[in-house]
């Protein structure tokens, strides 16, 4: 629906200050950035990670005592979907050299590289190949590609500063040093990046960047990368077998504690299928659909943190799960679009953030956590948020400024995806600002990996959002598409090499699942919760009460 009369009146206040703000921007006068100390203070006071009850200690497993979001801790402390005694490990349904769990950007990049290194690959994914947060990433992909003004040195500093200097340095180094290489790789695969006539990649700032190094493909950068990788995966169908709608529900180890395979679950026939694999790449993505603290999310339907559960149960430690990323600009109007990602690229292109009076209260390019905390502060303590008809709060993102700064037609040209989406609701974002509020966006942490994507289990690799450490306590825009490409490739290559050169056959076992159940009992945890969750349940509670023959825990029957 278009803006209500009341909101249209408020938009006039935004319009009243617009030209003066444009003039200031043209003169290079920006709203002051917060100092490092001010950032910390703002986070402590207003970021959701720091509110009472935001974290609790995990009571079992390799990170016992580590405090993280209760929503994730609950899943790590849940029981397996299967009774290990009922699984016949001698009846093998598939056998492969490399098994990839997850069909998003990291998984598909891994599949391509594993294949190039001579492996036969099975890629198993919960939904369709490509249904992943990669597909939804909009704004861009960072790379220090222009040597006259930028270098991996500055990219590294930005990554570390964004992550509050907690990032694992070796992972951050790999991320920035491989960046130009993976962009060249994607270009060679035919990705249509936005370019100047001489071929130079267009580039913008993102929150927390000191150089404009955000490269992009209009406002559907992730879609362009994902659909290209998927197409290339299909071209190699002889070596890469894709299994859709079959999520993994447990890892299988060998007696020596090495990677042995995985148990998959066919969502439609409800069969459990055993895959024996010499190496595995865990690339199952993030967990926005857990709705931490009841926040709305930008994540795709399958983002339920499955890989964390599988890895943790098999003994892999997790890190950096004590922070969660809230994207500052999720749509709050119209109601149908609530939670939807409004790319940071709008702010990178110059759009201000404004309160109900049309005034700036924060620089639009603070790192995401600081930006989000500032929105929350404005809408709560300061009390200058804008109320929506459905009772939510938001602040303005002044997209029409971009038309003035960069020329008429820029919004349609640079943001075709969002333009059409809002047009469907009768809102022209080249003329009217958008109402936004922080939304659950990214799992900063995850399974611990080395810069070679190894986990502590020989033969088990991890890459992308399921892993932790690359981004420290807060990821910068444009570094997740980079992450999935850089580490997906490394994981795929290393898994293929391991499968060929190092993997040893061994008797398969699910003892780690038995041990997990014993640990739950020993810790006095009584739960009927099972994990991985696989799918969120949004059915009407009134209907659910009448669903007497199903327990509706995910898809468990």
């Amino acid at each position, binding site marked *: 629906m278009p803006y209500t009369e009341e909101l249209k009146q408020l938009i006039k206040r935004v319009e009243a200050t617009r030209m003066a703000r444009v003039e200031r*921007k*043209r003169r*290079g006068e920006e709203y002051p950035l917060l100092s*490092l100390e001010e950032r910390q203070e703002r986070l402590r006071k207003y970021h959701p990670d720091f509110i009472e009850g935001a974290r609790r200690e995990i009571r079992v497993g390799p990170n016992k005592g580590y405090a993280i979001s209760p929503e994730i801790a609950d899943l790590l402390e849940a029981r397996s979907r299967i009774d290990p005694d009922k699984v016949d490990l001698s009846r093998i349904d598939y056998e492969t050299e490399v098994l990839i769990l997850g069909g998003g950007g990291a998984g598909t990049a891994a599949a391509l590289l594993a294949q190039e290194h001579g492996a036969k690959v099975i890629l198993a994914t919960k*939904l369709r190949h490509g*249904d992943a947060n990669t*597909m*939804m990433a909009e704004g861009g992909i960072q*790379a220090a*590609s*222009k040597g*006259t*003004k930028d*270098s*991996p*040195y500055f990219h590294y*500093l930005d990554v570390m500063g964004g992550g509050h*200097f907690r990032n694992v340095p070796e992972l951050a*180094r790999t991320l920035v*040093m491989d960046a*130009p*290489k993976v*962009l060249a790789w994607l*270009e060679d*695969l*035919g990705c*249509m*990046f936005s370019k*100047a006539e001489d*071929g*130079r990649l267009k580039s913008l*700032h993102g929150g927390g960047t000191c*150089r*404009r190094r955000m490269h992009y493909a209009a406002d*559907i950068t992730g879609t362009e990368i994902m659909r*290209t990788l998927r*197409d290339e995966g299909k071209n*190699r169908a002889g070596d890469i077998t894709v299994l859709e*709608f079959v999520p993994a529900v447990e890892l299988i180890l060998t007696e020596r504690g090495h990677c042995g395979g995985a148990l998959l679950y066919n*969502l439609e026939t409800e069969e459990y299928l055993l895959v024996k694999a010499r190496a595995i790449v865990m690339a199952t993505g993030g967990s926005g659909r857990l709705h931490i603290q*009841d*926040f*709305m999310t*930008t994540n*795709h*339907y*399958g983002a339920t943190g499955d890989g964390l559960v599988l890895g943790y149960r098999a003994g892999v430690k997790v890190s950096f799960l004590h922070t969660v990323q809230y994207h500052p600009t999720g749509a*709050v109007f119209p109601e149908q679009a609530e939670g*939807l990602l409004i790319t940071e690229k709008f702010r990178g292109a110059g759009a201000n953030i404004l309160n109900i009076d049309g005034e700036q209260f924060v620089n639009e390019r603070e790192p995401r956590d600081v930006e989000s905390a500032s929105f*929350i502060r404005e809408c*709560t303590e300061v009390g200058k*948020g804008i109320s929506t008809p459905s*009772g*939510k*709060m938001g602040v303005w993102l002044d997209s029409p400024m971009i038309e003035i700064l960069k020329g008429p037609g820029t919004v349609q040209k640079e943001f*075709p*995806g969002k333009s*059409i*989406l809002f047009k469907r609701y009768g809102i022209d974002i080249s003329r009217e600002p958008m109402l936004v509020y*922080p939304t659950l966006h990214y799992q900063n942490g995850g399974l611990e990996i080395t810069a070679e994507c190894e986990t502590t289990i020989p033969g088990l690799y991890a890459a992308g959002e399921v892993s932790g450490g690359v981004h420290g306590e807060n990821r910068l825009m444009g570094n997740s598409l980079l992450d999935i490409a850089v580490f997906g490739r490394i994981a795929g290559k290393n898994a293929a090499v391991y499968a060929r050169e190092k993997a040893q056959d061994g008797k398969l076992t699910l003892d780690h699942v038995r041990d997990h159940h014993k640990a739950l009992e020993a810790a006095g945890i009584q739960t009927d919760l099972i994990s991985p969750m696989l799918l969120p349940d949004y059915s009407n509670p009134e209907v659910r009460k009448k669903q007497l023959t199903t327990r509706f825990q995910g898809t468990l029957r």
Partner: protein
Amino acid sequence: MGAGKKKKETPNQSELIPIFVLGKKYDVPVSLTIQKAMEYAGYQWIRGCGCRGGICGACGTVYRFPDSYKIEVGLACQTVVQPNMYITQIPFFPAIKKTYDLETLTPTLEALVKLYPETLRCLQCNVCTKSCPMDIQVMDYMAAAMRGDIARVAELSFDCVMCGLCASRCPAEICQYNVAILARRLYGKFIAPRAEHLRAAVKQIEEGHYDSMIENLIKASEDELKRLYTKREIEPEEADEMWTPKDTSCL
């Protein structure tokens, strides 16, 4: 907190309207999308639900109103329910996808037609365009494909989410979206000017130009890192492409 920002997908109870899911009637709140309305009715999606944000193409949906001859289309996650709509989803429609080695192709009509000869069967009926939930001029890009204008196909089809609704309704049985992605990849690889600066950056990195700089940052204390971070020069937002920093020692 407070502020009422939150909430999951659970809708507010409001005015209910009838919709027909595969012919069966359900009463659902008036403000919901088709996707959320079916969840409200008790469905849990397995197929036909992906990003929930209008970009993945998992939830292509066709519907019709009782008194209308017209078949309407939309993405279930984007289309708001209307009274008496008869809904069915097309989450998967069989498609032809040829495999190829991009390296060996040329960006020409011959390459397209060799892989997808049915392209030339296009009747110019425009049903594909009418079926596109992304408002893409599908018939126009197919016309460009028949002319061998790869760049035009790439440009016109850029917003394609590959939902397959065009292919589901094409009387010439063409799978337009797979022709389109082939054209886009040919364009991206062979026609668009190459980003030479990327190769230059790769070369610098591979020659070890930055190794010691990064090594020093890794070794630096947190205080030193913070100092370097705080004093780093910020490229002005409105700077032109040729802007260079004052300190070029770490380039």
